[in-house]
């Protein structure tokens, strides 16, 4: 048998590394050669985290080659899409039907990347044999601890791997926090039983594009005393003090019309008005 490849993907803090340790341990206990590879450092801090596990009679590369993972297990929807290229044609995709929208995609005006993708299994269904969109977080929560969602996902993953339950359970017992062993094993089995949910059943995050207006920022300089308060409250950094400590509008286009500057102007000097319509922000596609 050639080496099996599993890619686990999620967001820093979701327990991807722990889950991959469990899988590697379970494979080791099944007397397989195992290699597991992950990237530490910056990526762990709320960023995308991925771990590759390869096991079999012999394993050379610790990294799963593209289009060769037997299973891609994602703890979050956007991460499933990110690592799709690793999944073998007709491989199995296991996804927790939850969305973690990165802060960068949450600002209505100042996104620093691509917006959050719509949850739609149709976009990937044609390239995989099985799409298991499971409500792992919901299941974990119903079991009493939302943090066991990764065990639920691994339970679902186990349906596609040749590692027996005893090895899994021992591996889980070894790695999960003391006291949560039973709960995680229960979550694991719940994952084995979990049925696929339809994306339509997942509550919408309201990520539809928002029709943004543009705003005009008028400063009545004859009233303004250049106190410097408004630049500290403008969430979009539209206002600043220049080197002579005078108030200047530096980025009117970024104004979201929140009117904090108005509300916190002690001099009644700032007026925000709605400008030309129909500027669409970088919301969702």
């Amino acid at each position, binding site marked *: 048998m050639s080496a099996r490849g599993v890619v686990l993907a999620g967001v820093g803090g979701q327990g991807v590394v722990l889950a991959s340790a469990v899988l590697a341990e379970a494979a080791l206990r099944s007397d397989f050669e*195992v*290699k597991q590879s992950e990237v530490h*450092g910056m990526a762990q801090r*709320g960023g995308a985290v991925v771990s590759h596990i390869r096991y079999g009679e012999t394993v050379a590369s610790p990294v799963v080659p*593209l289009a060769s993972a037997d299973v891609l297990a994602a703890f979050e929807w956007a991460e499933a*899409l990110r690592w799709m290229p690793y999944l073998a044609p007709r491989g199995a995709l296991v996804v927790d039907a939850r969305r973690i929208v990165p*802060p960068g995609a949450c600002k209505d005006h100042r996104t620093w990347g691509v917006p959050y993708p719509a949850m739609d299994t149709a976009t990937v269904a044609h390239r995989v044999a099985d799409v298991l969109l499971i409500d792992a977080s919901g299941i974990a929560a119903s079991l009493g601890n939302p943090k066991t969602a990764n065990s639920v996902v691994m339970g679902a993953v186990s349906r596609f791997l040749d590692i027996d*339950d005893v090895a899994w359970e021992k591996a889980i017992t070894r790695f999960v926090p003391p006291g949560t062993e039973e709960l995680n094993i229960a979550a694991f089995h719940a994952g084995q039983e979990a049925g696929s949910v339809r994306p339509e059943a997942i509550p919408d995050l309201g990520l539809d594009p*928002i029709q943004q207006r543009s705003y005009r920022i008028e400063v009545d300089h004859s009233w303004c005393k250049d106190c410097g308060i408004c630049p500290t409250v403008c969430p979009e950094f539209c206002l600043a003090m220049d080197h002579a400590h005078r108030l200047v509008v530096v980025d009117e286009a970024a104004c979201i019309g929140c009117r904090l500057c108005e509300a916190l102007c002690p001099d009644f000097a700032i007026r925000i008005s709605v400008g030309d319509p129909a500027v669409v922000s970088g919301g969702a596609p």
Partner: protein
Amino acid sequence: MTTLSIRADRALLSGNEAIARGAWEAGVHVAAAYPGTPSTETLQALARYDEVDSRWATNEKVAVDVALGASLGGARAFAAMKHVGLNVAADTFMTASYVGVGGGLVIMVADDPGMHSSQNEQDTRLYARLGLVPLLEPSDSAEAKDHTKLAFDVSEEFDTPVLLRSTTRISHNRGIVPLEERREVPVRGFRRDPAKYVMLPAYARGRHPVILERLERLAEYAGELAVEEGTDTRVGIVTAGVPYQYVKEVAPDLRILKLGMSYPIPIERIRRFAETVDRLVVVEELEPFLEEALLAAGLEADGKAFFPRTGELSPDLVRDGLAALGVADPRPPIPDAPTTVTRPPLMCPGCPHMVPYWSIKRLGATVTGDIGCYTLAALEPLATMDTCISMGASIGMASGMAASGGSDEPVVATIGDSTFLHGGVPALMEAVYNDADMTVVILDNGTTAMTGGQEHPGTGTTLAGEKARAVDIPALCTAVGVEDLHVVDPYDVSATLRAIEQAMAYRGTSVVITHRPCVEAPLRVKDRPFEVIPDNCTACQLCMNLGCPAIVWTDEVFEGRRKVTIDAAMCTGCTLCAQLCPPRAIVPVEVHP
């Protein structure tokens, strides 16, 4: 169903753990390091063995100094660092090559091809050539342990420090490692030998020929260490380290010469291998180190024409190269990845670095940054860092930036406590000495957070967890002559903003120390979380400017903007967003009895 028993004589270890295990089995006595991804866990793993005096040093140079001293004292000694750390240690390293060793001296350096968490992807093999020091290069965890043990023996046999080069894919790859017992090696004791250990020019001149002669013997040894595999002679691959695994993965039958020691390069051994194959190809990450050596030696070899010089290799890139060489199947067409959201790393919820940067952004400054978690402040939404070069560089650069007169805004250097002690102190002395008009913000979170929370001389704890004298950073600043010194709680938005504003206004070198423990280490901070009262939220999203990952959108819209919510599981209760929220929509979660 049968119960499989796990054998006690093997374990699933990361490369770093395997190296530590190897050093322990080799009987190492003293180990010193400065944390740096991807090398950090090595010393932490070694610290679990009581037989070893493992310690954090203030920086890599000090770590190598310590290790060299231990070695000359006759003990087996080990130092670990990331690739850029060797730049810091280079001064000692270069001359250590001349003096040789007492007990075995191994310097583990972890490269980061692909720059997963580094500011460059320099190739440490070049340092081996520069220092005329042998370099071993394992290709997986098991080999990492073996090479480490070997390195100590080589060190003592050839009277040389030995570089052990890892990469991210070795250090952070787990594989099965057979476990052996520790071999106790007696400490030989220091043997006075000024001609060998005191590198006055006269003595040093005598050592250089010795080193060159040593190198010749080592090259021969390297040849013996190389392993030949495979039957397909259409192409002969010369490789080392993790690329070997990729070649084996893609084309298991090809003729391969896997080097264990990639410097000095066993040219003669390769020349013999070349005669057994149609075409000689080098598969190596980063620099064409071997390739150029082969060409210089008159061997026809290919390499970088087929494999990229930048970034890390992968099975797929190796396949692409071999396919181009006609010895492997091209990879199947891979459909484009669906478009997905970018997810850059973030500061942690409750990170005490958020507000200092938020404040600097508010006040406007040219910011020379440094290496640490806070480097994330270069990204949106804080986007407050203009330069980031190397450990401790921020302060000196700020001094230079101020001297240039090229910044029309105040010049601010930001640096973490660990980085400050690593490389910032001399620069601060320079700035004060030359009266640089600048502000240094020392982000003191009581740990080396970026690499996972290591102790340092300012934390009051050693690597072994014992209580230690802690550097008094404010007193240190005062001692070097800082007169405008502010110590603030970065959880106090107002105080932080004020202190930084005052420091910026000061003419001369001012220092602001923001003082709050990291939320992750050494203790995990988790207090009563805060929540958003939706009715009060006006969706200004000001809170999002902190870059706190616990703050996310909801589907509720206010005047065309989305309101926010706080992930209670992530929220540490730091209060920062509540302090910033103008409508007072963010309040502590009520505790229900």
